[in-house]
């Protein structure tokens, strides 16, 4: 498979037939949804929390420059070294330079979607720096030479047997598909890396504009190890990770933990307020915060599309999406799959390349209902469909077909006539009228002889 967004249709066609993949993805997303529901059902205030979350995220995105300045000042006051990167390449170069300056040749890394967006691992490895992914899911993905298929559960598309075989082959251990044993193997292997690696890279979940606090949530403790033990900690974030105040943290921790893993709180939350100070016994001596714009400031100006920047990357919309459940994350050909990926990829990266993604939805609205910050995801998909059409990306035949359809639908008489004509054709040539692009995977509906409208009319006349 050529995993590009432009190949979505072709790849989805293959993936939809892969029943093994589908059952793995269905099972994992189903478990995640059940756990989330149990927790949310016990929170009567959930709906009002979502609204608060939405309002605060809107406030930040609407005033992104002011909040960015305020966060930068506060973090610097805490002793962090803050770097701003306009383009993706700027960010990777800044990170590479920091690592070179301390002459390190390896880094331990915790899970971060923004570093995926930067393709950071590839760039660092091409320049001779070994990247050690330490989140269990990311470790598995790195070992397999793949990319994450989910934003919070990167190895969701792998069964325990897949992982057992992978470990057997790559780590030279005897076959076992016991998750506890596989996990213990990784713990043992990574311990020394944590203790001896001099640079740690992490993402950021929330950055507080008033106190300069960087917050990282996790369950495994690998992010704590990556941010406490090394001499240098590089935290990578995009501008929209900012929230106005430290006082907003408890709200967002709740929204994110519940939505991502159905926990009231994840096992660990690190709130980092600067590097090691003179009276502290441990912690990194240098804290770098690399903040990427990457087209987001531009997007924040768009009256509708800016909403996608409210996202807190919980992954719930992926879990609940019938399309994602059927084909998994890789076929989207984007760092961000699922509904939020379909919304964000065309507007943030490349609408032409990703023109099929807004159509990868049944518009059922389950994503909008589950989103903890109330992003109107399915309407965004609809608006982006219109944009794709307005930009003229659709084929000539489709344009003609749509024009004819529109012409027909604008008059009751023409609809009536077309219905009868269809009925007649089906009567003579059989039910399956071939319609390219439609009937190969769907059955043509049987048309009635008389329309509902005309039956109604007749009944009414009879009554009268």
């Amino acid at each position, binding site marked *: 498979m050529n995993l590009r967004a432009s190949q979505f249709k072709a790849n989805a066609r293959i993936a939809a037939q892969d029943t093994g993949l589908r059952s*793995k993805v269905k*099972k*994992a997303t189903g*478990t*995640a949804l059940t756990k989330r529901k149990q927790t949310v059902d016990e929170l009567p205030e959930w709906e009002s929390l979502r609204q608060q979350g939405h309002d605060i995220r809107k406030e930040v995105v609407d005033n992104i420059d002011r909040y960015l300045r305020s966060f930068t000042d506060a973090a610097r006051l*805490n002793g962090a070294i803050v770097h701003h990167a306009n383009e993706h390449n700027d960010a990777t170069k800044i990170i590479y330079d920091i690592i070179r300056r301390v002459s390190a040749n390896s880094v331990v890394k915790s899970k971060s979607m923004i570093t995926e967006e930067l393709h950071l691992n590839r760039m660092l490895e091409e320049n001779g720096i070994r990247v050690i992914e*330490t*989140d*269990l*899911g990311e470790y598995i993905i790195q070992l397999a030479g793949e990319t994450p298929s989910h934003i919070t*559960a*990167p*190895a969701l598309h*792998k*069964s*325990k047997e897949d*992982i057992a075989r992978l470990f057997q082959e790559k780590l030279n251990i005897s076959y076992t598909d016991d*998750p506890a044993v*596989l*996990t213990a193997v*990784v*713990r043992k292997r*990574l*311990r020394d890396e*944590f*203790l001896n690696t001099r640079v740690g890279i992490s993402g950021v979940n929330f950055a507080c504009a008033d*106190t300069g*606090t960087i917050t990282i949530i996790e*369950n*495994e*403790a*690998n992010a*704590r*190890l990556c941010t*406490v*033990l090394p001499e240098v900690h590089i935290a990578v974030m995009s501008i929209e990770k900012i929230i106005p105040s*430290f*006082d907003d*943290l*408890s*709200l967002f*921790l709740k929204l994110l933990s519940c939505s991502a*893993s159905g*926990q*009231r*709180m994840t*096992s*660990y*939350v*690190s*709130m*980092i*307020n*600067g590097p090691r*100070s003179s*009276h*502290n*016994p*441990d*912690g990194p001596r240098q804290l770098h915060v690399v903040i990427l714009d990457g087209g987001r400031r531009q997007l924040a100006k768009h009256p509708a599309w800016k909403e996608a920047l409210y996202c807190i990357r919980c992954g719930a919309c992926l879990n609940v999406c019938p399309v994602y459940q059927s084909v998994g994350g890789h076929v989207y050909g984007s760092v961000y799959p699922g509904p939020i990926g379909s919304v964000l990829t065309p507007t943030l990266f490349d609408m032409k390349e990703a023109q099929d993604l807004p159509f990868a939805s049944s518009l059922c609205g389950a994503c909008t209902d589950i989103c903890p910050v109330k992003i109107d995801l399915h309407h965004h998909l609809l608006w982006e469909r219109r944009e794709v059409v307005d930009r003229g990306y659709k084929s000539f035949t489709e344009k003609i077909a749509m024009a004819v359809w529109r012409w027909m639908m604008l008059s009751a008489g023409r609809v009536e006539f077309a219905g009868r004509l269809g009925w007649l054709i089906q009567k003579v040539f059989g039910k399956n009228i071939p319609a390219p692009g439609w009937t190969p995977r769907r059955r043509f509906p049987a048309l009635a002889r008389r329309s509902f409208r005309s039956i109604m009319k007749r009944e009414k006349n009879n009554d009268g």
Partner: protein
Amino acid sequence: MTDNLQSLFQLRIREMGGWCEIVESLESVCALLGKKYAFDKNEIVFSGRVTKLLNGSKLTGVDVESIHPGDRREILAHAMVGITTCDGLIAETGTAVLVNHPSEPRELSLLPERHIVVATDDQLYESLNACLSRIKESYLAGSMPSLTLVSGPSRTSDIEKTLVVGVHGPKEFGVVVIGT
């Protein structure tokens, strides 16, 4: 009220795979931990803040500050139990809030096989919000140290959503609350 908060805290921490015991005296803390963890003295490490809280009661183990800084990481990585204090317990989530105090290195709650928190019942808050505001207020004059929220042992569900406890961090998390 406090009783309700205590039982809610116990419930939540259990849901997350941790444990919480409520004891009545400083001596019972040492007795409880001594009974639970019959390890070599050198395999149990605690902070100066724990000794201070226990006010003279003898706890088996070594004070982290008595360890040479160059050896600390190695010793903690092989320790069976790390004992710390905390700056707040959150009933609604079963969380212990740890402020990065100078005498309590973050490695102490991170590297040993088990992490135990010793707290008093007046440190119990209903919500995380209340506790965080309190901490923020107390540092208004200077800059706030880093905080770590711990709500359970290290865990993962990355392999087929099967829960496995003890990935990279402590395999056990427990809280001993000293009640009045």
